[in-house]
């Protein structure tokens, strides 16, 4: 799965998150930060992670979430890592 494909899927997820302003989803890049660029409350990241798990059919571990950064690329990396973990 290509990184851009993952980003597109992530944007779809973010459209379902009430606290994310749809206007902030117009040109999401790998460097977009959930907290500073999208003003997403940090408490919402767990809710986003749970939706991403379902969307991409992957499973994150406690440590994955502990260490998760707040940029789009961090979640893309994590999705790829989780998929590789499941295939290994």
């Amino acid at each position: 799965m290509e990184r851009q494909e993952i980003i597109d899927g992530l944007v779809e997820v973010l459209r379902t998150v009430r606290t994310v302003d749809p206007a902030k989803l117009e040109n999401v890049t790998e460097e977009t930060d959930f907290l500073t660029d999208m003003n997403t409350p940090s408490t919402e990241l767990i809710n986003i992670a749970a939706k991403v798990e379902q969307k991409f059919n992957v499973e994150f571990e406690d440590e994955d979430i502990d260490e998760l950064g707040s940029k789009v690329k961090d979640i893309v990396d994590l999705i790829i890592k989780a998929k590789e973990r499941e295939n290994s």
Partner: protein
Amino acid sequence: MGITDTSQIKDNLVGELPENWLIHGPKKRLVSAFHWHKPKVGVVASYTPNENDVEDHFDIFRGVDMIESFAQATVVAAATFLESKKQDMVPEELSKLLIPTFISLGNVFFHSYLEKGQTFVNIGFIKFYKWRQMVCEGRIYRAPKGLDLDAYFKDFDEERLKNYDIGEGFVLIAELFDITGRGIKKEMFEKLQ
């Protein structure tokens, strides 16, 4: 003498001593007994406000203390239980690694109040539990005076929990929504400063 070996950990918290699961000091522990508990579903636990709890506050148990009692009974105790089972670690050891932390509170509606000596039950329903984060909702009821809560809740079940089906004599005190807590690694907690 706390729990020294995971083999001592039963299938649920009923009959367990709160001090074995709520590791903070006695003055701040607002749960006296667990009466019903289904690990990933919910819990019923009681407390009776004492002299210290109502001091300087019109002999009334404070609303924020009700929220704390509810959170201890549900988010802290229930999540500690699940994490102990998952990591095969006794609560004392777990408390050296993780700090139970409030993340956020949803709506809380108070319908009445509690005085010193008035036993109440926290009835909590687990809505989310993942990555050491738990979200609970539920209610606080004042229990009928002198009721044997262990006997009363012995046959409680998930269906009755979801419908708050607890019968006559219980007085609704508060409704609590999206009470969210998380076990945060100690080293990460210290970075929050």
